[in-house]
């Protein structure tokens, strides 16, 4: 029994036991369903071994939506616990576990896959390519993310959830103060998922630099593709820092080293420093593609080209560089002197300038446009004022002397939710709604979508605006409860009511997906929004090879221009198309890595060694493998094109 003791939950409660049962039942249901409907072959052939960027994008999307649910449940639990003083819904330990998982899940396992879902599906189409530069690596990236997510998500039912905050500061995250394996899960799951992201960064930069269709120079690329380029540039240089930090944290916890301890020369502050050297660029990784989505949507539904394309590009490039220069503003109060803090205050305020330029460009795009308030446009227009509140409170926090008042209060919590939700989440919902018809062949219902938007937009403000005041009144962050005499009660109750509204709004989103899946017409145009960029010049559904003939584009809005002029983007004859083969190795290798990670978390060294060897065998196999892909013949292309054109 001793061997199995390590898997027990250190702090069980009824909700955790219920979850164990639910997870078990879900797994059984999935396996039973696949078997009954004889879909194992289909699953393997079409999804587990795919290297198609469109399929991979959809898998990222499904994962993100699932994780949004988990993170959202965490959020409701937190708001419910703090709705009234001295509440006993969650004790301190469980509250810690919930806010920790909420942060990790939302940022790493919801927002990141969401942006990669959109970038994966859209970017190759926007540049007229047939896939990304390294399709196999792309598949590996997804499965690494997926395994990292799965590993993290079972922590709360096997061994114990991490509970030291999403920032996992030492010495709290060290062995003495966090005895359970929870923080091991943190270190290792993030390492695995982070590796996947780093590989994607390399993949997308290479794709965008090398695989654009003829005529699409850098300054003629769609703006979303530019946002993907700048965001992935940040990924390539930021994620290695996280790799090192997590390695050192793992070594402290599992190998007794003294990187971040309080004895033998260890420096706990170094963790916070390295974490944020990664962590700040990370939030810009999230926001830049979101900005790209807004640029596309605003110009499409204002029925005019984006104002200030060049300055939009330049501002994103500047943001990507400056994002590496501001990290200390996350720990102004950790003990640096005034000079150091002031330097980072200045860089922090500087990064507001290119962001401001973008806001003005969006406004100017709207100014002379003929605005069509579709659901994506509602989110984009709602984003501008709400995000601005987040932005200006960011400037307040960025003044280091003043930050001593705001740091780690609810004011801070409100600030980052005011940037991340209207910034990233609204953009993801808008982008999802916008590109949904291209992905799935039907439209999401406008009416339900609008209801969802208003519930979400209004409830968001009801939830988070009171937190500014609660923070200024002295409510600290990550407090599991407070007494009545503090006076925090009414504001927190308001937040809870808002949170319920958010739950309704997101519920409507899910309902919209179900409703539209059931009832929406599949007989839609391949360009239902009358849009401007190249991804809309494909059929519905997009064939595996994307474009039968590589398009020739010669302007920023080549598709729109072609529509206006009545000219064709596709000149010439069909030629056989070279496509990569599917492969099971990314999936298998990732399963091995999951097992490796799980064994590592529990210090089971023999399985660690065995799975490590397995991973190296996969890599050796790849080295010796000869795989030249396959060709799609001209006859097949003709057949597919004729079929799709009929629709």
């Amino acid at each position, binding site marked *: 029994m001793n061997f199995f003791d390590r898997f027990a939950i250190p702090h069980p409660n009824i909700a955790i036991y219920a979850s164990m049962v639910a997870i078990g039942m879900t797994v059984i249901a999935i396996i039973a369903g696949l078997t009954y409907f004889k879909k194992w072959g289909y699953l393997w052939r079409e999804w587990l071994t795919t290297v198609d960027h469109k399929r991979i994008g959809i898998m990222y999307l499904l994962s993100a939506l699932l994780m949004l649910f988990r993170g959202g449940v965490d959020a409701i639990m937190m708001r419910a616990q703090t709705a009234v003083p001295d509440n006993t819904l969650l004790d301190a330990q469980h509250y810690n576990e919930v806010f920790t998982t909420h942060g990790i899940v939302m940022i790493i396992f919801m927002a990141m896959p969401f942006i990669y879902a959109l970038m994966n599906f859209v970017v190759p189409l926007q540049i007229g390519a047939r896939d990304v*530069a*390294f399709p196999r690596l792309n598949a590996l990236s997804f499965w690494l993310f997926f395994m990292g997510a799965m590993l993290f998500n079972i922590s709360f039912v096997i061994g114990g959830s991490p509970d030291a905050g999403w920032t996992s500061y030492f010495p709290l995250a060290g062995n003495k103060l966090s005895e359970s394996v929870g923080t091991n899960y943190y270190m290792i799951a993030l390492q695995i998922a982070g590796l996947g992201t*780093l590989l994607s*960064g*390399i*993949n997308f*930069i*290479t794709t965008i*630099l*090398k*695989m654009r269709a003829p005529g699409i120079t850098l300054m003629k690329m769609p703006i979303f593709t530019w946002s993907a380029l700048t965001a992935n540039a940040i990924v*390539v*240089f*930021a*994620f*290695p*820092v996280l*790799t*090192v*930090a997590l*390695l*050192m944290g793992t*070594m402290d916890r599992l*190998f*007794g*080293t*003294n*990187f971040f*301890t309080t*004895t*033998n*020369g*260890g*420096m706990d502050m*170094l963790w916070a420093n*390295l974490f944020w*050297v990664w962590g700040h660029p990370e939030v810009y990784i999230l926001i830049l593609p979101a900005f790209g989505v807004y640029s596309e949507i605003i110009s499409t539904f204002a029925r005019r080209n984006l104002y200030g394309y060049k300055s939009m590009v330049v501002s994103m490039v500047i943001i990507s560089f400056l994002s590496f220069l501001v990290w200390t503003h996350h720990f102004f109060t950790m003990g640096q002197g005034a000079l150091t803090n002031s330097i980072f205050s200045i860089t922090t305020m500087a990064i507001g300038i290119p962001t401001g330029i973008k806001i003005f460009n969006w406004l100017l795009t709207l100014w002379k446009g003929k605005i069509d308030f579709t659901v994506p446009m509602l989110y984009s227009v709602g984003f501008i004022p709400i995000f601005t509140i987040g932005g200006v409170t960011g400037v307040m926090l960025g003044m280091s002397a003043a930050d001593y008042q705001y740091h780690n209060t609810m004011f801070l919590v409100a600030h980052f939710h005011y940037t991340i939700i209207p910034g990233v989440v609204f953009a993801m919902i808008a982008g999802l709604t916008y590109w949904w018809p291209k992905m799935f062949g039907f439209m999401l219902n406008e009416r339900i979508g609008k209801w969802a938007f208003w519930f979400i937009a209004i409830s968001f403000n009801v939830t988070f605006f009171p937190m500014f005041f609660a923070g200024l009144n002295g409510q600290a962050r990550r407090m599991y409860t407070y007494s009545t005499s503090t006076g925090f009660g009414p504001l927190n109750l308001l937040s809870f009511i808002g949170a319920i509204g958010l739950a309704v709004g997101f519920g409507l989103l899910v309902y919209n997906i179900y409703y539209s899946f059931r009832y929406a017409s599949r007989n839609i145009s391949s360009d239902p929004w009358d849009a401007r960029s190249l991804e809309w010049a494909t059929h519905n559904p997009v064939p595996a090879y994307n474009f039968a003939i590589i398009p020739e584009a010669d302007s920023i809005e080549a598709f729109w221009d072609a529509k206006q002029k009545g000219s064709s983007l596709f000149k010439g004859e069909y030629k056989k198309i*070279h496509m990569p083969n599917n492969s099971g190795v990314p999936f298998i290798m990732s399963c091995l890595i999951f097992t490796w990670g799980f064994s590592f978390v529990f210090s089971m060294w023999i399985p660690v060694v065995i799975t490590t060897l397995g991973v*190296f065998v996969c890599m*050796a196999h790849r*080295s*010796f493998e000869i795989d030249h*892909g396959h060709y799609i013949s001209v006859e097949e292309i003709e057949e597919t094109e004729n079929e799709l054109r009929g629709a």
Partner: protein
Amino acid sequence: MMKIDNSLPLEYKTEQNQINILGFWIFLGAEIMLFGTLFASYFTLVNRTGNGPTGAEIFEITPVLIETIVLLTSSFIIGLGIHAMRLGKKTAVMIFFAITLLLGLVFLSFEISEFVHYVHIGAGLQTSAFTAILLTTLGIHGAHVTLGFFWGLFIILQIKKRGLTPEIANKSFIFSLYWHFLDVVWIFIFSFVYLKGMM
């Protein structure tokens, strides 16, 4: 995809080959940040020796100099290997690659005995923050060399079996980029860990 530009060296001839090489350079950019972070941590923790020894107390110049010369030479040899590859000389390529990997093994054996020595004299992984970051930095570089050894070995086997095709030339060139990069990292380790520590 298989359009061959015969004006270019073998490793660049096809479109996919050029894409692979660029992708690898970007990976090296990420590796610069990986080692950069290790150096940042090293300089921060270098004087935090707790009850353990300092660098000056444990570093010995002779094995370090040997490691450096060995690695520099291996970098030169693989440069000769790529040069031979561009001239289409298959056997020469295999010999130069084999010597490179052999020198890599020599480097690793010196480094392993260096580590064993440190543990013996009380500078183990768990001794202090300084020893932790020292051994981790050296260890990660060494792990990269070890991975490189096996990767290079697989390439030699492929050259033997399949000859110098554009694909294999591409792989060999990319491997050489990796090997040169590791030498660059070592130069910084040599200068700012060992020499600076013994100044």
